[in-house]
């Protein structure tokens, strides 16, 4: 404020309505001092300019704009003199130095209503939207500065503030990736239909080059264990071909980054299947593209992402470790928009069509192409570079492989109170290594044909239909029906036919077929009831029906495993978000009830979380709760043939229902620009399942349950985060110390380190903004993961004359791989013009660290040898993005 008062503001014309500058066309010759020119423009077009007079001193201009739009003209003129301007919400045009930092509060307060209030102790409600696209903004922090009154908008962008002292108050809104916005109440304003428009900080950057003060990529401090991300800012991070929300989350402490082979999130010692992934309300069961190098979510269709590293509300359930809630974009409701990206991995395009003021549609599609990066990853995973297939060499096989995904969402708002939206997602990976040999013609004549099929496919389809209604300022409901399917198939077979001596046609069909298919039909309804300004009651009910099938067959006829489990999980929850002690203490007790049909059991999950403001900057926070999981994923790692995974439902026999008793305690110290955050967690896990092929004969009738072993575990650790939130330089240092121990009777009495145990993990993320360039660098260090190595090996002659190699094994996970580390850099340049476009250059693993993925063992000449299989080395990438708006 001191700085502000030293500014001498010259204000021309008193009250001017905000108007669209691009509609004003300037044609005549403009000469004179800049100050005179601005005065003239203000007079002619009823504009208001604000500037520091000495800033414009001695600047003389002579320009002929040739019917240019005013904003465009001003921008180019001011730029010549290292100046810039931006338009304030009231329409005032503020001219400042090119690198000057401006706080929105400084000028907007001047516009607050000055007269006496007419109404007191009122409630105020409304909707928050994106100024450019008209999209509603969920989870926006809405508050009255200088008081403890505050709330956040719901998933549809609605908010209600209760107990607002007067109708002359200023209301502020903050949201990650957007400039803090203020709106001013006055006795004339209708208090139940406020419309707050927020401007994305990245858009301002391009349009008006305002300083980067409100551009956070990641926000970590709001609630216990909650992370928020701005998808729009993702592009400036280094990427391996594709901007990826899951890879970005892996840069935060508590989420392991040393797993290049899966996009799934290892959160605080949990495994990816312990993380609940919701996309517009439906559950996504597999998040991997291209063997896991990329996540299945297209950043262009995402509006908001929240990740709970633990301590999640009673509203969410069915998983032990974490929740990722993704809200898809609704689409621009003002203008038609189209855009896309091309990178060394994929093509990505989206289109936004406003069908009417109340009806918006967005579609986004992405497909990989066989670029050098794609091939590099493909070869590493499919083992194509390790020895070749003799049959393929002889007859020639062409490997075809791709992935694609598609997002579609249409949103209809039949009234101011209702929102109905339909969201659809479909994605698939296809890997075809089949051989169709061209046989010599005499064999063809013999009517002999043979085909070798080797096809692996997996994918997701999901859809949700949602109806939300704001019944009143205090009562809101959200009802949803959804469908989700995940499939994973493998066909490795030889088939063909020939004509035998008797002239009869004989068919050959040998091979293995695996089909895994998961169906999820869900319905749920959530209610929010603002009982008072310090109590918000939330409750709801849910129903999920799972139908999970896994079939493993040989020779097309004999089924080896044919498992199909179906079952419903249903229940409800209630929780109360309390604001106590003059809003210093936020306390949310809650309970969730589950009935699980397969076991016939009832499962209660009591939970609570709190945050306590010790001082304005210093907060204490914590949570405790119980979490159950009924459906789990089983992974059969198979490096050369691609990993196979399938989901199973717990049955309380060999596959118990998993549970997690979790405690989180933390503190954060936050200033305007900096955040220091520490959270410690302790999880006591039971009913864990491990899948082992140890006794998996590939013949005869198999008791499927023999593959599973159950055990318990403890995961604990501390996440540290030091973040520079805003400014030309921003970024963070994250550090996690943790340990995950399991105890499975089958491996002995003692505990052993879980395969995903990482002792130390450090992440350093730096971002720098220079003119229209964004630079970013990330460095990741993680202690080596545990592994089991052979003590020795031996060979046995079998009755059929074969000799099999066997490795005898040391204690489970008693050894450690070398530490994982890598350094990635990226530079993004934003082009200004009629369209918004940018070009990103990025280098993955700059110093070409050879990180070990796993070790391979073989017995050679009476000696057991190991070889390291490496992750990706130095990999450059380039991405070009363009969009109309």
């Amino acid at each position, binding site marked *: 404020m001191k700085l502000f008062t030293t500014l001498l503001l010259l204000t021309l014309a008193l009250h001017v309505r905000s108007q669209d500058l691009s509609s004003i066309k300037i044609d005549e010759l403009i000469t004179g001092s800049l100050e005179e020119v601005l005065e003239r423009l203000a007079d002619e077009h009823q504009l208001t300019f604000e500037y520091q007079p000495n800033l414009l001193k001695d600047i003389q201009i002579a320009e002929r704009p040739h019917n240019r739009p005013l904003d465009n003209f001003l921008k180019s003129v001011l730029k010549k003199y290292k100046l810039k301007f931006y338009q304030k919400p009231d329409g005032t045009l503020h001219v400042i130095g090119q690198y000057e930092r401006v706080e929105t509060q400084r000028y907007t307060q001047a516009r607050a209503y000055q007269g006496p209030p007419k109404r007191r102790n009122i409630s105020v409600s409304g909707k928050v939207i994106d100024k450019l696209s008209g999209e509603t903004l969920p989870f926006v922090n809405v508050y009255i500065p200088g008081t403890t009154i505050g709330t956040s908008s719901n998933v549809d962008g609605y908010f209600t503030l209760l107990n607002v002292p007067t109708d002359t108050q200023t209301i502020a809104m903050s949201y990650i990736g957007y400039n803090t916005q203020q709106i001013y109440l006055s006795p004339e304003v209708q208090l139940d239909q406020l419309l707050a428009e927020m401007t994305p900080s990245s858009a301002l950057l391009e349009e008006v080059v305002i300083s980067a003060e409100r551009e956070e990529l990641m926000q970590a401090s709001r609630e216990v264990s909650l992370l928020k991300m701005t998808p729009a800012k993702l592009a400036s991070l280094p990427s391996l071909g594709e901007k990826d929300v899951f890879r970005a989350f892996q840069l935060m402490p508590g989420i392991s980054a040393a797993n290049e082979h899966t996009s799934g999130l290892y959160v605080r010692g949990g495994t990816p299947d312990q993380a609940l992934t919701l996309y517009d309300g439906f559950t996504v069961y597999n998040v991997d593209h291209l063997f896991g190098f990329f996540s299945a979510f297209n950043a262009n269709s995402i509006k908001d992402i929240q990740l709970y590293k633990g301590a999640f509300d009673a509203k969410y359930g069915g998983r032990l470790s974490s929740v990722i809630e993704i809200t898809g974009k609704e689409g621009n409701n003002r203008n038609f928009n189209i855009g896309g990206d091309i990178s060394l991995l994929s093509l990505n395009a989206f289109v936004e069509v406003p069908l009417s003021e109340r009806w918006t549609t967005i579609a986004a599609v992405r497909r990989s192409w066989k670029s050098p990066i794609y091939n590099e990853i493909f070869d590493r995973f499919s083992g194509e570079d390790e020895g070749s297939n003799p049959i393929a060499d002889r007859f020639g096989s062409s490997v075809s492989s791709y992935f694609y995904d598609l997002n579609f969402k249409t949103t209809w708002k039949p009234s101011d109170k209702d929102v109905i939206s339909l969201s659809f997602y479909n994605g698939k990976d296809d890997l075809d290594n089949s051989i169709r040999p061209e046989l010599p013609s005499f064999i063809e004549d013999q009517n002999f044909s043979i085909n070798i099929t080797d096809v692996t496919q997996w994918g997701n389809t999901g859809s949700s239909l949602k109806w939300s209604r704001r019944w009143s300022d205090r009562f809101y409901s959200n009802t949803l029906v959804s469908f989700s399917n995940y499939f994973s198939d493998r066909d490795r077979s030889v088939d063909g036919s020939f004509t035998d*001596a008797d002239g009869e046609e004989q068919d050959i069909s040998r091979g293995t077929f695996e089909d895994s298919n998961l169906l999820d039909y869900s319905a749920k309804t959530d209610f929010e009831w603002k009982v008072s300004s310090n109590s918000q009651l939330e409750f709801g009910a849910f129903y999920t029906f799972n139908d999970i099938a896994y079939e493993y067959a040989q020779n097309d006829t004999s089924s080896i495993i044919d498992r199909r489990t179906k079952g419903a999980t249903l229940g409800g929850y209630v929780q109360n978000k309390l604001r106590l002690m003059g809003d210093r203490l936020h306390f949310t007790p809650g309970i969730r009830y589950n009935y699980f049909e397969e076991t016939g059991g009832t499962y209660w999950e009591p939970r609570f979380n709190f945050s306590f403001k010790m001082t304005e900057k210093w907060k204490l926070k914590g949570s405790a709760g119980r979490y159950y999981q009924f459906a789990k994923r089983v992974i059969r790692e198979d490096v050369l043939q691609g990993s196979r995974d399938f989901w199973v439902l717990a049955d309380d026999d060999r596959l118990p229902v998993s549970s997690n008793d979790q405690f989180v305690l933390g503190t954060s110290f936050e200033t305007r620009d900096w955040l220091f955050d520490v959270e410690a967690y302790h999880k006591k896990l039971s009913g864990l399942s491990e899948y082992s092929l140890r*006794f998996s004969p590939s*013949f005869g009738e198999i008791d499927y349950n023999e593959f599973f072993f159950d055990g318990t575990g403890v995961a604990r650790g501390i996440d540290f985060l030091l973040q520079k939130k805003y400014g030309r330089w921003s970024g963070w240092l994250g550090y996690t110390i943790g340990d995950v121990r399991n105890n499975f009777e089958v491996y002995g009495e003692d*505990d052993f380190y879980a395969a995903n145990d990482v002792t130390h993990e450090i992440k350093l993320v730096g971002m720098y903004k220079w003119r229209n360039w964004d630079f970013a660098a990330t460095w990741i260090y993680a202690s080596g993961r545990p592994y089991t190595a052979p003590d020795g*090996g031996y060979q046995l002659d079998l009755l*059929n004359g074969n000799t099999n190699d066997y490795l005898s094994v040391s*204690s489970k996970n008693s050894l450690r791989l070398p530490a994982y580390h890598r350094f990635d850099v990226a530079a993004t340049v934003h082009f200004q013009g009629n369209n918004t476009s940018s070009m990103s250059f990025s280098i993955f693993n700059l110093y070409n660290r050879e990180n070990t993925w*796993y070790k391979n063992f073989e017995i050679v000449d009476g000696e057991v040898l190991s070889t390291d299989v490496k992750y990706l080395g130095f990999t450059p990438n380039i991405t070009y993005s363009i969009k109309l708006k």
Partner: protein
Amino acid sequence: MKKLLYITIGLLSFASCEKSDLSTDQNSANLPVVEAYLASGQPVTLHIERQAPFETTDSLALPIEGLRPIISWNDEDYLLEETTPGTYGSGPNLIIQSDQSYGLSFEYEGLEVSAQTLIPSRPAAFRASDSQLHFDTDNFPPSFPDPIQLDWENPENDYYQVGVQYAERDTVAIDFFGGNGDGEDNEGRPQFASNPQQSNSYELGFQDFQYVGTHRVVLFHVTAEYVTLSQDASSDNTQNLTTPYTNISNGLGIFTGVGTDTIIVEITN
């Protein structure tokens, strides 16, 4: 800031409570590897050796000499003699009988190594639909012969495995395959083996043979422990390495029984 430090220390102690014992390395490198197939109607021969060590060339996989293995059944014991280094046999004095349980025990490096198995019966009523398979290679293009159907009785739904061995010293490739692959000293060399299956029949097709001449078709009646071992998906990387199946206590490998029957099949062209 001091308070912050205290809280951090407090959190550290919160997260580090509850210590537990971690598994210590139980070295399995010194365990002996036994390979013993006891066939009904045959004397005992078994082989015992050391494991190949991991990433050292100090001592390669070597036979273990000087052991005193004892075969026991029905309260009777028989001490095996070392015939060649690491190979121990009974000679004709001990003939294995089917449906009888046998034990093995010996002492190695201070540990009592032992195992137990039940000898499966000789396959019953093993027969083939034809005793020869003729490849008509005179005509061009060649034609494919009908397969040989093998049958046996399997009332208990036990595991059976079919193996085909070449029974002549020198091999002559079937003309159909282009005349290559003739060789010498191939007697007893396995040509083909099926996976163990709980069945009572098998079809031997033209694709199962490579050479003309006399072949032995052997039907093995095998135990579940053998099946488990032979099919143990011997993983070879750190992602899912587990100790392979064994039925030897304080040792590795297999001590199992097998019942066999043989049929002779002629391949001509």
